[in-house]
């Protein structure tokens, strides 16, 4: 397994290389002149030129790519045009807040999503199912800005229990993670429901009932794990999305994460930062893929032994 993982990780290197090309081209292709955007809304043409020269934006594209790549190979992600700071430093300080927020949100989503999905699968078309459906659909169709602001109004302004923003303590995690996790919990709940319903039709479920097992055991031990495969796919995807930082949640709760950095860098076309972020996100998705595959193997011994 370790060998396999290492192999997969090594395979990522050429892939990331290809991604740099795509990313670089795409980023430069989208309209917008970073020099103009960063120099400010009332910059003179000279100021703009200055920025352009300072960051080598006046050079031909291939040259920019070559110098970008040669820096990259030396482990240098470049310098932000906007902040004038090393991109690596910026990413690393933004990564952890987003990462922890993602972990906590995912924790909620799974904690609520899976049991809700199980209940609604077992109580298919009963009132429990309908109630959970209404919850799930609400969580999907309520935009997160609305949910976030409502939570903030209630728990921060009215009740004064929780802070409105920042990342100082565990209390700061509660509202943003609920905001971010609600929609994901809904998706997970719906997928769990569907997957469990599919699994419950299998013969081995009948076998386990024939052993006299409690319905709960049948569900949790026999149905659940088999149903987890599609759920894991979905969870992995959502985890990836969250790891790229949620622009809305981070904005709402003044979270110093990747999402806000991303939006700022896109708005100002801060090429080095955008490129580095895209590379990071691609890497995250590749890594998540790997983890999901390993999880498949853990969940499904057939995959594990490759037959």
């Amino acid at each position, binding site marked *: 397994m370790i060998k396999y993982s290492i192999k997969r990780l090594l395979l990522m290197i050429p892939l990331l290389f290809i991604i740099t090309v795509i990313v670089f081209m795409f980023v430069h292709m*989208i*309209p*917008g*002149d970073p020099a*103009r*955007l960063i*120099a*400010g809304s*009332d*910059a*003179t*043409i*000279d*100021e703009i030129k*200055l*920025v352009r*020269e*300072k960051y080598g934006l006046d050079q031909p594209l291939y040259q920019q790519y070559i110098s970008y790549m040669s820096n990259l190979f030396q482990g240098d992600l470049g310098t932000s045009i*906007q*902040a*004038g*700071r090393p991109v690596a430093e*910026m990413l690393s*300080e*933004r990564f952890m807040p987003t990462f922890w927020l993602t972990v906590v949100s995912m924790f909620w989503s799974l904690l609520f999503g899976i049991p809700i999905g199980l209940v609604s699968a077992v109580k298919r078309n009963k009132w429990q199912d309908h109630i959970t459906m209404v919850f799930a659909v609400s969580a999907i169709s309520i935009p997160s*800005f609305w949910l976030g*602001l409502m939570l*903030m*109004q209630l728990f*921060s*302004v009215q*009740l*004064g*229990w*929780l*802070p*409105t*923003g*920042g*990342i*100082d*303590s565990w*209390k700061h995690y509660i509202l943003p993670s609920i905001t971010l996790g609600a929609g994901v919990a809904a998706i997970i709940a719906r997928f769990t429901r569907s997957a469990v319903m599919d699994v419950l039709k299998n013969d081995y479920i009948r076998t386990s009932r024939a052993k006299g097992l409690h319905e709960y055991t049948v569900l949790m031990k026999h149905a659940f794990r088999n149903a987890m495969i599609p759920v894991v796919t979905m969870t992995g995807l959502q985890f990836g999305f969250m790891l790229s930082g949620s622009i809305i949640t981070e*904005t*709402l*709760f*003044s979270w*110093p*994460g990747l999402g*806000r*950095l991303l939006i*700022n860098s896109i*708005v100002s*076309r801060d090429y080095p930062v955008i490129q580095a972020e895209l590379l990071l996100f691609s890497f995250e998705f590749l890594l998540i893929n790997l983890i999901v595959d390993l999880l498949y193997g853990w969940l499904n011994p057939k995959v594990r032994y490759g037959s």
Partner: protein
Amino acid sequence: ACGNNDKNDKASESKGSSSDTFTVALESDVTTLDPHDTNDNASYTAESAIMEGLLGFDKDNKVVPVLAKSYEVNKDSTEFTFKLKKGIKFQDGTDFNAEAVKTNIDRLADPESKLKRHSLFELVKETKVIDDDTVRVTLSKPFAAMINNFAHPAAMMISPDAIKKYGDKVSQRPVGTGPFTFEKWQHGEYLKLTVNKNYWNKDLPKVHNIVFKPVPENGARIAMLQTGEADFIYPVPPTDTKTIENTDGLSLVTKPSLIVKYFSMNTMKKPFNDVKVRQAINYAIDKEAFLKVVYNGYASEAKSSIAPDTQFYAGQTPYEYNIKKAKQLLKEAGYPNGFEATIWGGNSSDKVKMMEFYKQQLDKVGITLKTVPMESGTIGDKIWGVTNAKDADLELYNGGWSPSTGDADWGLRPVFGGEEAFPPNSYNTSYYQSNTVNSLLNQALQTSDTAKRKELYGKAQQQIWEDAPWVFLAVPDLIYAKKDSVDGVVMQPSGVMDVRGAEKK
């Protein structure tokens, strides 16, 4: 209510925001702490708590001396001589003297330093130390508005030792003469400043720490003020002013800005090449409704091409809302049935709202407006990517202009300065070309005679008003909110805040 306050205190305790810490929630991140390389108000606001310039702006945008005791300008506005205050030290112990000033001005004036604010000082030919507390700056050509550049926050003084020691990284470790010293900067989260015990003005500062927090979401910023996590927030969107007004213990402060909201009309393109059409459109927009719908009343009608607080402002007779007259003018111009036009603009919700408003208004005079909001980079390319004015697709552009230096030249030249100001060089999105205005603006720069300048700028404003390359709309207010117990923050019309005197009672 009182009850509410109790709760707020609880919340603020958890934040560790205590009575000697002044917390400011701003919309945007502080991006840098090097004033010479800054172009955003949030950074200037933070920097001006740490650093000071020779001159500065007061709350009415008048130039006042700060580190300079006094200054003199020669007749043709080429030589600026500053007398410095004595006994001032930078926070790192370095003396503030003429040598320090020279280091700073030289840094700004050097094109190789590639500082964002180099352009403000690109005319500087030489900076000379006359004696320990006298320094003279010579320009390569006359530029009367230069004094405003010295007052601009970009011209704040950084400790020469720090510049030497940190180089470019001085943006992360600023050292100035101001009442607060840099303590900690957690990017994206907060910037913390603490008291400078050796500050030259013994009255200041009045709080121990200042914390700046970027809180991009309007609702969150207001919530922070409500819970007591922030003492002062800026900006407050006009739509939310009621919330502040309805909360006990909070107050709303407004102040006219230097911004003029307009939409420009491409005077080189049909039908906007006809002044009658442009005037007709000016008549066709109900400014009063505009102020209400877009700004919730927190703005005033624009009565010139620059805002009242800008130097040498000269108010004009407004184009009143008059559909009949507008239709009449259109008819005269040969468009009795109106026409179709496209307006470009930014994509923030207030800008979209404005454009929608224009559309509704112009509909009444038969002009069908297509509104195209665009993301900032895209619109930048579409307008400023055009090198030949004739090729411009631009018809109407929903814009706003604010001269951060507060002087009339910067208020007028970039937007009305003729061919030289056409995109991509500058911001003349109406492709306005008037020889009269050009020569008035040039003359005004050649002299330091204030009365003369006032007259020249007045004439220029009048001409522009009549030619109506813009639809002159509004001068919005700056709106901020604070706890009642908080005082001493001075909001400058440019939008930069002076928090040096902040206090909590």
